[in-house]
């Protein structure tokens, strides 16, 4: 298809632009500046209301589980490592290695999201912290929920990029391909959601003292669905057709990586300004 040898594109200089910075990268940096202000405003709201608690406000220390949040923070940081490896791989033209790294990033992102779902449910049902029953709940759920949405969008983007790495050359993009492409995306999105809720089901069963039989009775369809989606994904992986994805797409992966790292950094700030600050 192409006469390029691996590693011949200069990934730090784009001769077609005035500055040498690729347009997509510059765009992403500027967007992240904007997103900084967005999170800045949300974090400020939380900190301002933290300084002005209403009488009878809940005690955050009694609600938080620092162990769980530290764990999910660590996982999110490790996902950044995998993201960086994916960028390095595709810059060397190694599509297969990039796919593994992307899948791992997706996996870690899913763990983080699962922890957040668990945390929200736990806080709402056991600790009686809801969106509306105190200002702390309002700002906490709004801020961390907005971050969670950012992570979820990131995971979706990773999935779409992963599927895109199977894209055939333009001439072969038919309706059959379009159908398969959508099936591929649905399979992986399904696998992420089903695995997350199946595992959360295990935790729930242990916590409420349920039996293995009761777990399988209520979660069988999730487990079956999970394996079905994995089977679909594996069959796509094993296809041996030509793909139109390689070193030239490194900039797309790198821009996505910038977003992913940014969302991580925001979480470090949130972890400090929302969680750790309560233990000072």
């Amino acid at each position: 298809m192409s006469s390029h040898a691996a590693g011949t594109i200069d990934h730090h200089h784009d001769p077609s632009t005035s500055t040498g910075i690729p347009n997509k990268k510059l765009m992403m940096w500027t967007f992240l500046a904007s997103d900084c202000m967005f999170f800045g405003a949300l974090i400020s709201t939380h900190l301002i209301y933290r300084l002005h608690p209403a009488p009878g406000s809940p005690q955050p220390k009694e609600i938080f589980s620092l162990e769980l949040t530290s764990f999910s923070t660590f996982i999110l940081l490790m996902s950044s490592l995998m993201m960086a490896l994916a960028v390095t791989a595709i810059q060397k033209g190694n599509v297969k290695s990039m796919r593994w790294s992307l899948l791992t990033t997706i996996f870690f992102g899913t763990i983080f999201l699962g922890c957040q779902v668990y945390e929200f449910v736990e806080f709402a049902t056991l600790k009686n912290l809801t969106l509306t029953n105190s200002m702390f709940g309002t700002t906490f759920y709004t801020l961390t929920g907005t971050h969670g949405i950012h992570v979820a969008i990131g995971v979706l983007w990773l999935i779409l990029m992963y599927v895109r790495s199977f894209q055939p050359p333009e001439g072969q993009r038919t309706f059959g391909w379009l159908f398969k492409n959508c099936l591929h995306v649905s399979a992986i999105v399904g696998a992420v959601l089903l695995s997350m809720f199946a595992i959360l089901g295990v935790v729930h069963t242990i916590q409420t003292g349920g039996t293995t039989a009761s777990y399988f009775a209520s979660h069988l369809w999730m487990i079956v669905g999970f394996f079905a989606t994995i089977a679909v994904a594996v069959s796509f992986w094993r296809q041996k057709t030509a793909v139109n994805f390689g070193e030239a797409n490194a900039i797309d992966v790198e821009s996505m990586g910038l977003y992913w790292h940014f969302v991580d950094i925001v979480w470090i700030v949130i972890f400090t300004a929302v969680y750790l600050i309560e233990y000072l």
Partner: protein
Amino acid sequence: MDAILKSELQVKDTAAPAKSAVFWRPTAQTGLVSWLTTVDHKKIGFLYGVFALFFFLVGGVEALLIRLQLMLPNSSVLTAEQYNTMFTMHGTTMIFLAIMPLSAAFFNFIMPLQIGARDVAFPRLNAFSLWTFVAGAIIINLGWFMPDGAPNVGWTGYAPLTSKTYAPDHSVDMWIMGLQLLGVASIAASLNFIVTIINMRAPGMTMMRLPVFTWMTLFTAFLIVLSFPFITVALVELMMDRHFGTSFFEVSGGGMPILWQHLFWVFGHPEVYILILPAMGIISEILPTFSRKPLFGYPIVVFSGASIGFLGFSVWSHHMFTTGMGTVATAAFALATMAIAVPTGVKIFNWIGTLWGGHLSMRTPMMFALGFVWMFMIGGFSGVMHSAAPADAQQQDSYFVVAHFHYVLIGGSLFALLAGIHYWFPLMFGRKVSEFWGKLSFWVIFAGFNITFFPMHFLGLNGMPRRTFTYDTNLGWNAGNFIATIGALILGVGIFIYFAVMVYTFLKGEKVGKDVWDARTLEWSLPNPPPEYNYRVIPTVHARDALWYIKQNPAEIAKEDAAKAKIEADHGGIHMPHQSIYPFVASLGMFVAGVGISAIDHDPTPGFWGKKIGITLIGGAIMCLGIYWWAIEGNEGYHLHLDEDGKESKDKKADHP
């Protein structure tokens, strides 16, 4: 799947078919489809202009109704509720749906031409910005056609007026949703402009050779990107209060209404500069052209623009001097506000320096530009008066403030935009407004504007509060209000003449050749109207006044162009992006979802599925499909091959950029 596969970056894929099997590749050059699918920055700019002028007329009618109500004491042209709706919609419409998109029209149309580019960096994103702006504008105005009515909480939407207690219907929800969509549109457009200006400059167009209008576009785009997130957050919080029962701004739940004011003005004050910086850029183009001189002190004008933008983020609380922030905060914001007068004054002096000793040519754009300098100064002076916090305590929420911001927004922004329309009209459409009618409209607008707003200074100092629906006969406000309303009617006549003449000129005006004003910037090197691909050969820039140099050194430029044209032809000709419908689809989805969230009643029966959720989800699905199709259709395009005279032979073969 072990092979390491690479896609082609520079290699042409000649085997690719002309038509995509899956994606619609519209090629219409005329008709509705061509407008809905266009990715041409000039067509998008034109559409921005058309929509902005439409909403400008709507806002103008609202203003005239306000003035008619206030013409006489104890008047009943409007009810109090209708009056509230009018001033809310007048402010919202003029700021977000008239001045901002009119500036965006110039950003789109002129800026890429000024830097010698063939399009913006992300043409489809540009189309998305346009259609999302239209979606937001429609949602804000939906209330006129609904029993709930249009929003009536002031363009500032202060808490707790916007709470469910005081605004139980959908009007505020539509205001929130419309503004959110406008925010998305503005940020997306600004990201595009920033990348375009920094990365798509022609060879030789260094940053310090950029035309000042392009510089101001860059600063404005940065202001939008950095300030709009604050109103996004404020509106998200307000929406959570209204839809999900939180109490960000509800005192009963521990909320603080003052937080709304801070978040709003952290956005709102940079917004003031978002409205005025493009105007300053336009003026900095027009004055040198009609003074037959280069702009005086170019670097100073640029850096003062930057410092205005920078300081603009540190003065928001001067809108809140009377809220009791404490003396330290008040003093700090007062000082920062006074500091902004310095770079603004520097610009004024540079414009005067440009005029000084120039060979002034009093054409219509120049008249509006000179009107701008004078009127904007008056608005600036009353602005400095507000910066003194003790004085502001007297002026707060009075007609003095109304006079001030109309002097900077009409006498400032609008005069400059009207000047810009006159200035670039020959480039855009190849026709020119007659000097008599142009100047007549200027003088009527100028007189009407001053008769309307100058008396408001006195009304304000005599204690007439802003946003008052009527007044009694014995308050001493009768004469001022009557004069102001007469002025408003004159201003209305002036605006009518202006647009009637524009429409006439568009259809039947005098045809003019290229570079009608003998100007200095690159866009005037193009034939009018500019071809789809803008530049047959990407120009090489040798001087700050690029076209001036080209006109002085024709032989050198001709040689350079011939060499470049050959190189480009060898590389496959001029690359053009395909038209695409998917940005429009994404915006359409946002519109449907926005209507679902903001304008549809909650279903009375409990349960998840219902009309509101259903419409919102359908809209969301359309949006996701639009974005995904947009992503996977790819950014392939086609190539144009031009001969010496610019006649094209289209090569529709798909090609990778």
